[in-house]
């Protein structure tokens, strides 16, 4: 059967042989590449490619007044943008549902994983704190946007360098010392692993755009290095048994190791020799 006429039948033929049209196995991720520090005007940036899916994350740090109920905490404000240039399914204008759901997902990951201790962003309690605006922009949409965004955010935050800020006692103004910069304290390393459910039974990892479209359900697991889960995102779709969930967990553990290794290589290559 033809790929364009009956895409589901075409896929089923491959899945029966336990592989996919692009030659991958059911549990195999696409080639992942990461590049940090490419945006010189941002305080931290990272570009992540998962096969064709490309997401860039830029982090800008600005001053803000802390919230009254937590005067010694800063803010981390994520925003995921899915512009028309990444895929023909998106129109220009206010963020669509997919972008909003992705933004909420990233906000939840930041909150649940405690990737940054918000107290670390405090400059002067009750008066001045850092706010980190994390802008994630998809440059090419080919499925599995959540994994790419999570990785891009993690890499960008590890790349962020904040200047030292002192409050002048007399003028009560903030003095920024751009010559003295220090890296952010990234406390945990949350890594996302996404699955697509096919025909209510088969689970495939890292779905492409076409696979996501044909899938009957999706699942995203976000795990940190200790095996703790900060997010189990399953927005409806086909049901899963506890046993299938366990298989996904083990795959997520191995994926975490793969990503951590890649992360460490990149960070070490950036360090001054």
């Amino acid at each position, binding site marked *: 059967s033809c790929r364009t006429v009956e895409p589901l039948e075409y896929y089923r033929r491959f899945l029966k042989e336990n592989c996919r049209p692009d030659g991958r196995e059911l549990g195999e991720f696409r080639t992942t590449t990461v590049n940090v520090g490419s945006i010189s005007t941002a305080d931290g940036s990272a570009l992540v490619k998962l096969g064709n899916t490309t997401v860039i994350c830029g982090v800008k740090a600005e001053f803000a007044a802390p919230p009254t109920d937590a005067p010694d905490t800063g803010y981390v*404000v994520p925003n995921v943008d899915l512009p028309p240039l990444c895929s023909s399914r998106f129109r220009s204008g206010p963020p669509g549902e997919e972008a909003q759901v992705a*933004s909420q997902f990233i*906000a939840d990951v930041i909150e649940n994983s405690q990737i940054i201790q918000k107290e670390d962003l405090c400059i002067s309690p009750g008066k001045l704190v850092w706010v980190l605006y994390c802008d994630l922009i998809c440059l090419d949409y080919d499925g599995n946007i959540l994994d790419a965004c999570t990785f891009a955010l993690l890499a960008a935050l590890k790349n962020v360098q904040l200047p030292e800020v002192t409050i002048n006692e007399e003028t009560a103004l903030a003095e920024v010392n751009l010559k003295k910069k220090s890296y952010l304290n990234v406390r945990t390393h949350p890594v996302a692993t996404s699955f697509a459910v096919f025909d209510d039974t088969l689970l495939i990892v890292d779905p492409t755009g076409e696979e996501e479209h044909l899938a009957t359900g999706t699942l995203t697991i976000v795990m940190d290095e200790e*095996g703790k889960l900060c997010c*189990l995102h399953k927005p409806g779709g086909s049901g899963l048994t506890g046993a299938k969930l366990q298989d996904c967990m083990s795959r997520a553990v191995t994926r975490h190791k793969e990503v951590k290794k890649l992360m460490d290589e990149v960070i070490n290559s950036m360090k001054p020799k």
Partner: protein
Amino acid sequence: MEEEMHTDAKIRAETGTGSSPRGPGCSLRHFACEQNLLSRPDGSASFLQGVAEKSRERLIRNTCEAVVLGTLHPRTSITVVLQVVSDAGSLLACCLNAACMALVDAGVPMRALFCGVTCALDSDGTLMLDPTSKQEKEARAVLTFALDSVERKLLMSSTKGLYSDAELQQCLAAAQAASQHVFRFYRESLQRRYSKS
């Protein structure tokens, strides 16, 4: 033709500023902007608030889409409108139960019923089912699951906080056991309703 599902969750403002629900004009959000200076954090915070609703709507919609037999009603749109009357914790689970009962009441053909169950884990790891707002706030992690009535499979999951894999399995097992009670309640209330007529 595929069926379209729209889920509008209209949440009444708890500050009691008026009886009008938050509509697309976003009366509550505009109010917040007037109070605070239009500094970006507040703007983004209220943007994120609307985004949280969109996220919840998608969870409920996708759960309904998984069970509703859409192919029996082509070129049809089913709109599920959920109005929060009072929120005393476990809101998402309550929304899921309400949505399921509403679909049954409407006579929409479904392949299974579904129910929502919330578990909260506190700092010692004690499991609490169906937590109150206070328990949710103090919990280390809050997990909400939607389970189907046929095989108790996991249809939807939405979690907050940090927890281990073993704790997840524990919560899932507890939720599956609790779902028996919810499904029994569905059956009993429907029996009561139809025995009267």
